[in-house]
């Protein structure tokens, strides 16, 4: 028996080393494998789509609401009266809760309560992609974090993993709660997760994202890898922030907060 035990321990030790090495390899590989899907060949192209939201230019509630309305109409996002069942792709949240780690009571007047436009950050190292057990959420080579509603099993691991609260689950059938159905975009079934898709379907038709278009210049959209792009020039000239950069997710949505201008 004692020989057996010794051999067992040897075997167990070797197994652990094996699992460790194999696991580490898988973790490294998973990062590379995440961009194996190519976006549509036609339409607008970029190496890394990114968004710059200039909050200085948002002055009235209407400035925010019409973008949310445009997005939610185009993507058949339901509006539930019950907060527990809420589905949202683009929404507003005040500054202090959008950037909770930036606690500062002495910010210019009005900043703390100023609404911030929130959406999926389309992270380069997206935790949701890392945890999905079916590859239902995946990275496109242009940086967009995409979601396949037909593969999603509704385990909601991605919702636990997303540090930005960007994901919504269809707790019940969303269709009765869609005010006006846009026949151009699919509606969803109960039991799947959804989120902002950076208007990947519009990009392939040569159109900019719906919120960008509706914002009339308040939101910029472009290629982060292209030094000459509008977003890069804007980021070079204005101080910008990203949400929770310390987590290493590399968000592709940048915010320009501004200072003591007039606020909503």
């Amino acid at each position, binding site marked *: *028996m004692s020989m*057996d*035990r010794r051999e*067992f321990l040897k*075997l*167990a030790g070797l*197994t*652990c080393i094996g699992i460790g090495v194999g696991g580490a390899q*898988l*973790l490294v*590989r*998973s990062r590379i*494998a995440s961009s194996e899907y190519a976006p549509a060949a036609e339409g607008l192209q970029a190496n890394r789509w990114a968004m710059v939201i200039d909050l200085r230019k948002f002055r009235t509630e209407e400035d925010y609401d019409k973008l949310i309305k445009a997005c939610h109409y185009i993507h058949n996002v339901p509006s539930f009266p019950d*907060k*527990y*069942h*809420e*589905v949202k792709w683009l929404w507003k*949240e005040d500054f202090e*809760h*959008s950037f*909770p*780690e930036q606690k500062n009571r002495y910010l210019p007047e009005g900043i703390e309560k100023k609404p911030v436009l929130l959406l999926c950050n389309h992270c380069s190292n997206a*935790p949701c992609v*890392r*945890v*999905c*057990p*079916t*590859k*239902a959420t995946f990275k496109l080579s242009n940086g967009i974090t995409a979601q396949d509603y037909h*593969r*999603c*099993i*509704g*385990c*909601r*691991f991605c*919702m*636990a*993993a*997303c*540090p*930005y*609260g960007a994901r*919504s*689950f*269809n*707790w*019940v*059938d969303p269709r009765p709660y869609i005010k006006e159905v846009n026949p151009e975009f699919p509606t969803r*079934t*109960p*039991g*799947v*997760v959804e989120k902002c898709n950076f208007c990947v379907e519009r990009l392939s038709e040569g159109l900019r994202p719906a919120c960008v278009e509706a914002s009339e210049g308040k939101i910029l959209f472009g290629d982060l890898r292209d030094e000459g792009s509008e977003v890069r020039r804007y980021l070079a000239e204005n101080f910008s922030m990203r949400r*929770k950069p310390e*987590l*290493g*997710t590399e968000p592709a949505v940048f915010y320009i907060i501004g200072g003591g201008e007039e606020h909503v």
Partner: protein
Amino acid sequence: MFEKALQGRPKYWLWILFLLGITGAGFLVYLQQLKIGLGITGMSRDVSWGFYISQFTFLVGVAASAVMLVIPYYLHDYKKFSKIVILGEFLAVSAVLMCILFIFVDMGQPMRIFNVLLHPTPNSILFWDSVVLTGYLILNIVIGWTTLEADRKEVPPPQWVKPLIYLSVPWAVSIHTVTAFIYAGLPGRPFWMTAIMAARFLASAFASGPAFLIILALLIRKLTKFDPGKEAIQAIAKIVAYAMYANFFFFLLEVFTALYSNIPGHMASFQYLFAGLDGHGKLVPLMWLSVILAIFALAMLVFPSVRANETTLAITCVAVFISLWIDKGFGLVIGGFVPNPFERVTEYWPTLPETVISVAVWAFGFLVLTMLYKVAVSVREAQGPGESLH
């Protein structure tokens, strides 16, 4: 051998019928959930995992705890466990079945479950969890059934089962480690993102599982002619004592790091669970009950005389089990979601349909456990006193 599960006194059948009734009721409610969606539960956009996943997490621990009987018996040749080790293995089988069912009822699109196999994704911890849980289930069914059958025929078990038994030891550790990794690797959930999560999971598992086994062993002695053995029960009680102290120690380590570092994100969940946050404190009484029961159990377990008395031992084991059930089968999962990434509080409480479905999964687990134990006990009763041959 299975026929033994189909022979029993009226009381046995009454118990089986009772469990079947609850399982059936739960199944009907589940059909409703299938039709309407998970909206019939108390879960929300902010607290997106609830009672189901909590139960799964807790039961993985109960399943893993079988190893606490396997190690002393098979690796250290501790003969007193020869007859009782089967109880641990069969408990593991029913616990893993419950785990799988709890994951299943939590899925939004259960008919797509095979997507996990169709599109295997090694970077997802959930993929690995499905692998290790299935493996552990098969290992314990094969090992338990083969060794019991050998006992019944009064022959030593076949040689090929030995390597499987050895494999089941690290495998048991793996199921709970992988389950801890589901939580411990998420960047935006500071309450879960702690390196000690897997160790704490194992410690709490090795306390709650064996505590439950002691209760089961005492019940078996009362209800059947099979005596699992006083010394065996006492040995398990020692395991519970050490594991419970380790678990409490690990918990205090978590509290220290969160509170002494004074980082708001790390403190917030603890505040919500034990003191309430922004005027919300639904879980506070429950969490304190867990702490009080834990302290009571720790105080009881430290005295050998309290453990030696089987009545006080049983009471202590119930306290251990309930305390750890609240801690891991409720607080741990919900606490990680509160506050949400915007530092706002959305509370969670299971709804009635959700509770019925959960109770039904437990009832199904007990049904499997009862039938497996009936088989094991029948073999042992026929065997009479003395040790097994393996």
